[in-house]
């Protein structure tokens, strides 16, 4: 046993290693990314770790490993599970041989996601058990138990940490030994092939397993009742920690039902709780999973408060303050809020594309190239480049989900013939779910321009390799898939590859591609600035600057600031010498020079 300060995601990976995991797959997505990065860092020779092209692929690869009896884990963020939902739903029928843990990180808030969907609802929908850790320590223990449970019930098991577990660090007690798993390998059985007649039988079995699982969870160490007054609180996830602090701070007397397995609810333990309290306030972020199960179980015997009574919100993260308010309301304590001191409202600080980001150059060239077309529409996708929607670029008109830029653009083009629709997609997203959309455009001969913003990495999540980078997750050499060759193989005939920092060439290329009637593509290829070494040169503004601020107002590069006299200054610590700004200066006041220091 050793102690180490671990981020929740690290704890999940280390727990899986202790549990003897052999195959780990996943697609990066905040807040889940560091689970796989921990495996990469740990370099455990017994674990095969892969970044997958997307979450569906990842889950299927992990499932195959589990079919053969190996312990496998797949990691993703909550919206990734939408992509992986097809194999997940079927796997709940087919089942597994070796333990399969599906680690899906939810993002209440949301901090870095398109939705606030609750993976516990997905678990209920798929009839699969789910663990909901309250802390990194608990996540470490739960992942190990999840593998055991998966093997016992021959079902995938979901582990659902949230942002405040994934990205919280705590002292975790780590086991020294690794569980030894011996596998017999894949055993050929008719049950591995899903057919309607089998599905009917498996569905029945799955429903029976729900009750067995619920009974099993009655004795789980992750579900506990703490007896106090007849005022009951049921709590799941990280909210348990906030609740503890509110109770200590105000010295409150309540009974607590702490739930680590929100689906299926441990019915025996829940019944015991319902019978010893006069009412229950349910505290859980996002969907009312525990609450709805308790409402059914209590069947009107005692009042259940929570989302159904507007005492806790559906959306947003919970906090000490949110729980204090709900708890005080429940206990009838007056919530005296001290008047806050009047402080001025600070200007917003939204995230921005970095200084020298190649996406800025691509967006700007596309903007200039299409300015004479009638209402061009710019479809965006998921990645750093979604930030291109902000002023002054205003180059992302739509953003839906991974890969949807290319396809939404096609629908727009069909509804508004003659409108030029551009679809911007990052390189990693292109591999993830972009390619089927390309084929669809070619097949139906739809007039769109696909713009692959190829910055040679998965930038938004912290620069993970992908199939185009020539490196595996472990940093070993791999075949680098050529995006241009893929586009060509998909049938796109009008393809241009350009360095977006070559401004005039880029504008020309965009003009040609957009003018083409039919599917066309531009690959704007330049590495993310986090991958490059700062060059010995920078761009500098000289004394001929007239203070028109055209550079700032056109590009919004964070390396450029007006000084007190109204002239522009370039910050040398963030200028990558990309030179884009020199193209927009009307008086040629921006020139290349030596970097200081």
């Amino acid at each position, binding site marked *: 046993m050793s102690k180490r300060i671990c981020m929740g995601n690290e704890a999940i990976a280390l727990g899986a290693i202790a549990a003897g995991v052999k195959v780990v797959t996943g697609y990066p997505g905040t807040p889940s990314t560091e689970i796989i990065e921990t495996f990469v860092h740990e370099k455990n020779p017994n674990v095969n770790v892969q970044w997958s092209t997307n979450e569906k692929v990842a889950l299927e690869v992990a499932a195959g490993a589990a079919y053969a009896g190996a312990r496998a884990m797949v990691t993703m963020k909550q919206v990734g599970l939408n992509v992986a939902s097809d194999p997940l739903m079927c796997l709940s029928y087919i089942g597994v041989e070796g333990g399969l843990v599906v680690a899906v990180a939810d993002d209440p808030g949301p901090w870095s996601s398109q939705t606030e969907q609750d993976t516990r609802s997905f678990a209920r929908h798929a009839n699969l058990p789910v663990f909901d850790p309250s802390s990194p320590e608990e996540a470490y223990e739960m992942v190990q138990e999840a593998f055991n449970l998966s093997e016992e019930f021959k079902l995938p098991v979901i582990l659902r940490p949230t942002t405040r577990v994934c990205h919280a*660090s*705590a*002292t975790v007690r780590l086991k020294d030994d690794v569980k030894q798993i011996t596998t017999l390998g894949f055993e050929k059985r008719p049950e591995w092939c899903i057919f309607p007649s089998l599905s009917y039988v498996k569905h029945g079995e799955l429903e029976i397993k729900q009750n067995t699982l619920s009974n099993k969870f009655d004795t789980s160490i992750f579900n506990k009742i703490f007896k106090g007054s007849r005022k009951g609180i049921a709590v799941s996830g990280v909210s348990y920690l906030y609740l503890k602090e509110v109770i*200590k701070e105000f010295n409150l007397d309540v009974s607590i039902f702490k739930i680590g397995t929100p689906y299926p609810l441990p019915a025996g333990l829940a019944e015991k709780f319902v019978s010893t309290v006069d009412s229950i306030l349910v505290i859980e972020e996002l969907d009312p999973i525990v609450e709805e199960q308790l409402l059914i179980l209590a069947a009107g015997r005692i009042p259940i408060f929570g989302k159904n009574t507007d005492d806790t919100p559906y959306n947003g993260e919970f906090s000490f303050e949110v729980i204090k308010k709900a708890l005080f309301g429940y206990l009838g304590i007056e919530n005296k809020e001290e008047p806050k001191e009047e402080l001025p409202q600070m200007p917003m600080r939204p*995230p921005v594309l970095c200084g020298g980001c190649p996406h800025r150059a691509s967006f700007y060239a596309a903007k200039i190239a299409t300015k004479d077309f009638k209402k061009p529409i710019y479809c965006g996708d998921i990645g750093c480049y979604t930030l291109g929607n902000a002023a002054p670029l205003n180059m992302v008109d739509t953003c839906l989900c991974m890969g949807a830029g290319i396809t939404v653009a096609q629908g727009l083009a069909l509804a508004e013939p003659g409108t030029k629709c551009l679809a911007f997609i990052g390189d990693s997203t292109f591999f993830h779910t972009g390619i089927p959309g390309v084929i669809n455009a070619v097949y139906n001969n739809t007039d769109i321009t696909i713009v692959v913003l190829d910055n040679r990495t998965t930038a938004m999540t912290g620069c993970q390799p992908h199939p185009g980078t020539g490196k595996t997750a472990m940093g070993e050499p791999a075949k680098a898939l050529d995006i241009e060759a893929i586009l060509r193989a998909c049938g796109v005939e009008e393809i241009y590859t350009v360095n977006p920092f070559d401004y005039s060439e880029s504008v020309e290329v965009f003009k040609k591609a957009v003018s083409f009637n039919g599917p066309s593509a531009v690959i704007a290829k330049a590495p993310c600035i986090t991958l490059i070494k700062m060059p010995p040169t920078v761009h500098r503004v000289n004394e001929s600057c007239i203070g028109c601020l055209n550079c700032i107002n056109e590009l919004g590069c964070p390396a450029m600031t007006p000084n007190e006299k109204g002239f522009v200054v370039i910050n040398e610590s963030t200028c990558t010498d990309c030179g884009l700004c020199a193209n927009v200066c009307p008086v040629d006041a921006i020139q290349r020079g030596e970097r200081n220091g």
Partner: protein
Amino acid sequence: MNNNDTKSILLVGVGGQGTILASKILSEGLVRKGYDVKMSEIHGMSQRGGSVTTHVRYGTKVDSPIVSEKSADVLVAFEKIEAVRWLDYLKDDGILIVNDFEIYSLPVLMGTADYPKDVIEKLRANVSKLKVFNAAKIAEDLGNIKTQNIVLLGSLIKAMNLTSLNWESVLKELIPAKFYDINIKAFNIGLSL
């Protein structure tokens, strides 16, 4: 279980200023000192030049990884107006450490929002234990503006009375070797502020 000795620190700044590294060094040191430590950070989108926060809490036994309103013993603002944005989290008698340094957000650069004036004066009117210095300038004079986070960390450690620990060994472990010397200098200046 004693929860009353838990200390809460909030580090706020702009993505790219090194708040997470400073928090990691702090947390690691606190663990070595035998405290139970919880830290919380936000990754992803907001890191690209957005407003960022990390929470560090330590004591005999800490539950929540999040600092609640009016409970921070120290608020360290890596950028001036971020201090105002997060001031509600500082305890009434808490210490506020402010980097007297301005980073303009895009709305300010574009002229659609104004960078507020007299920020330090407003903070002074609201906070009694206020420490203001320009860590960015100090770091720049040392030769690397990126060490401003370590200057601020030094000042924070002094404010929390945590100087007895061997911080140099923690820095040595968590900072790449070629940047170690300059960071130690930055740290020691921070300790003297």
